[in-house]
């Protein structure tokens, strides 16, 4: 028996104000004067925007291998706190998510944690080495049902290998998510190559190294008739190339991160490696271009590239520090600040770029655990309630993620997630994460019944 929730006075996608009844894992009814079970928990949602549960196409959960930075449990807690009900866990774990066994393990650990659906991303090549295709078919056919493949962190730079990957995943409607970085143009690169890098003497990561790969890949995708997803696009030139490709009818989608919507390379002047990220923070002109691209639909989605790192990996001289920044718990606020409050996107657009579209790209929008579905009666009760009027100051130590490498420390951001529901079960309530298993042992949770059965079986 799961708890029923009545959300009263919520603004659905920032539009119609109504009540929603969540029962038995689905949105049972929407409207006024609903027939409500006597034991339903009433959530006062007046002033809150109801969005479909957010879906992140680009998350680093670090488990297995770097549990000192993040675990599947802490990473999915962070996801829930940020309004997400599903995350795609990138493949650069140790061991690499390049076999059916590893992706199934990650998928299962996600179900055990219970804060958000974990959809493993499979490596394109064995060990992310860029030499030989990993067993993409086995990962697709595994219990994890992998549909997104990426060597993220490294580029599939070999054009023949990229072509093969694009072709091969058509067999199971997969997509290659490319980390676009020409390796020879970025050997030793530390930050965006431009005015700031020239003055402060850090090796440059030129925009052309991203744009050249994107240009090549959209042409390859066109040639073999495959779909392509471009990870964390960061330059004005990349936006132009994607715009051109879409006009040409090429099946390409693109993502931008919250940090590339907000921050610029000027922040590197203090040599604080909290701002070291790959692709690097770019110029204000690039920030303006990616905002414009997201507003006009050239860029399909926002994805976090949540990349937790332990303190010691960010505590030293810039060149020795790790690339990456956390983002799950601030993504929605950054999108509100840069896109909604500036009039570029409506909340319905936010639902598109942070839920519907990423779920569709990852083929997570159908099946028994469908994500990114409309907020309609009969749909899975995956949704989040955000208070757009709230203001909050980012304190990394107070976040759910196990790492504190947020570039937004001390910044005041708009918007606060008040509640998140995963198939009708609250993962966040009153702004606080709810332990899904606190109510009792795993066996009494119907959502985890099958996994409990597995755990008790031969495995």
């Amino acid at each position, binding site marked *: 028996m799961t708890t029923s929730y009545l959300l009263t006075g919520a603004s659905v996608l920032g539009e119609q104000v109504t009540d929603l009844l969540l029962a038995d894992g689905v949105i049972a009814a929407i409207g006024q004067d609903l027939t409500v079970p006597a034991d339903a928990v009433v959530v006062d949602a007046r002033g809150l925007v109801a969005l479909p549960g957010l879906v992140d196409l680009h998350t680093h959960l670090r488990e297995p291998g770097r549990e000192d930075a993040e675990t599947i449990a802490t990473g999915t807690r962070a996801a829930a706190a940020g309004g997400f009900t599903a995350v795609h866990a990138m493949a650069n774990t140790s061991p690499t998510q390049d076999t059916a066994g590893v992706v199934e393990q990650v998928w299962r650990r996600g179900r055990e944690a219970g804060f958000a659906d974990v959809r493993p991303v499979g490596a394109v090549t064995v060990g992310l080495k860029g030499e030989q295709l990993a067993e993409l078919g086995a990962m697709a056919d595994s219990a994890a049902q992998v549909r997104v493949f990426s060597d993220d962190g490294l580029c599939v730079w070999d054009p023949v290998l990229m072509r093969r990957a694009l072709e091969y995943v058509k067999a199971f409607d997969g997509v290659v998510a490319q980390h676009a970085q020409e390796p020879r143009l970025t050997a030793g690169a530390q930050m965006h190559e431009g005015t700031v890098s020239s003055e402060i003497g850090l090796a440059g990561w030129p925009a052309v190294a991203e744009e050249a790969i994107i240009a090549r890949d959209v042409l390859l995708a066109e040639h073999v008739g495959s779909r392509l997803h471009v990870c964390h696009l960061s330059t004005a030139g990349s936006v132009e190339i994607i715009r051109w490709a879409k006009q040409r009818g090429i099946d390409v989608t693109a993502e931008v991160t919250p940090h590339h919507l907000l921050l610029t390379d000027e922040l590197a002047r203090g*040599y604080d490696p909290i701002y070291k990220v790959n692709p690097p923070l770019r110029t204000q002109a690039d920030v303006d271009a990616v905002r414009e691209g997201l507003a006009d639909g050239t860029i399909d989605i926002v994805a976090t590239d949540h990349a937790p790192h332990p303190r010691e990996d960010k505590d030293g001289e810039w060149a020795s520090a790790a690339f990456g920044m956390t983002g799950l718990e601030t993504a929605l606020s950054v999108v509100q600040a840069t896109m909604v409050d500036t009039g570029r996107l409506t909340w319905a657009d936010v639902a598109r770029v942070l839920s519907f579209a990423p779920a569709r790209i990852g083929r997570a929008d159908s099946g028994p655990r469908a994500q990114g579905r409309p907020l309609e009666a009969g749909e899975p009760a995956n949704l989040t309630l955000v208070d757009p009027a709230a203001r909050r100051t980012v304190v990394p130590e107070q976040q759910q993620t196990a790492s504190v490498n947020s570039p937004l420390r001390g910044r005041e951001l708009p918007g606060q997630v008040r509640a998140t529901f995963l198939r009708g079960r609250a993962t966040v309530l009153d702004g606080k994460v709810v332990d899904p298993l606190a109510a009792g042992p795993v066996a009494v949770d119907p959502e985890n019944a099958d996994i409990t059965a597995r755990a008790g079986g031969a495995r």
Partner: protein
Amino acid sequence: MKHLLSTADLSLDEAVGLLDTAAQMAATQDREIKKLPTLRGRTVVNLFFEDSTRTRISFEAAAKRLSADVINFSAKGSSVSKGESLKDTALTLKAMGADAVVIRHQASGAAYTLANADWLDAPVVNAGDGTHQHPTQALLDAYTLRRHLRSGTPGVADSAGAVGKDLSGVKVAIVGDVLHSRVARANVWLLHTLGAHVTLVAPPTLVPVGVGSWPCDVSFHLDDALRDVQPDAVMMLRVQRERMSSAGGGFFPSPLEYSRLYGLDARRLAMVPDHAIVMHPGPMNRGLEISADAADHPRSVIVEQVANGVAVRMAVLYTLLAGEPAVPATNERS
């Protein structure tokens, strides 16, 4: 001035003040007893993560002539080579009571991080960080330029005569591997602050993208630059031969072509005014960026730069540790 990290941080008064203090220090170095009691009981740590015998002994000489105790901490043969972090090294130095830390590091920004990360209270002197800055080199270059070109007596080098002056009207050509050069960056900003006009000369591959924002001109042709600019000083930068190989970046086709197009030799030296001086931060690649004729020419001040380096570093340590310039800054720039 709490630290010396970048010449871009120096105001005109601070820069002139340091040069004037250096002139006073230099005056004491002609005495039989060179040692001053100023920093007695203070400890200066030379923290060198990168080999540089020349810079280290220059700082060591400067500190010792001010009677400071000197600890040389080199990455080789220390815990640093075993992977100790910059942070732990800094905490160790703090615990040992370092009064000032002179740091040389292969990473750009390492001095900045050491000074600003809250690990250490002591003043930090940047003795070269990656491809970022080498402020004491630029100060000694400015000091050398000033005593030759602003002494008040044309053709006569005079430190005392140049006191209080900046480098207004002085034209300097800086030639070579600007892209990888902390000396070039440090000089461009310091010389600009002092009122000099800088022209960078390099093959386009060795000029950084983004140089357009720098306060200087850029030329790709040494002959044209020498003829058109008529510089008062030509500063040659060290070029590493390995920059030629594809593994090293393939920045130019061959050392011979580099020498032909960008090397300073007797023919090119004849193109500049008679009073122009030849400078090089050392160590030189004779036959690559500079010929023996140019390096050993009467107008070459390369050896004098080394001597001036000690005086300038004395001035920097004195200013940071004794807290005030020895000479009040003057507003008269004549």
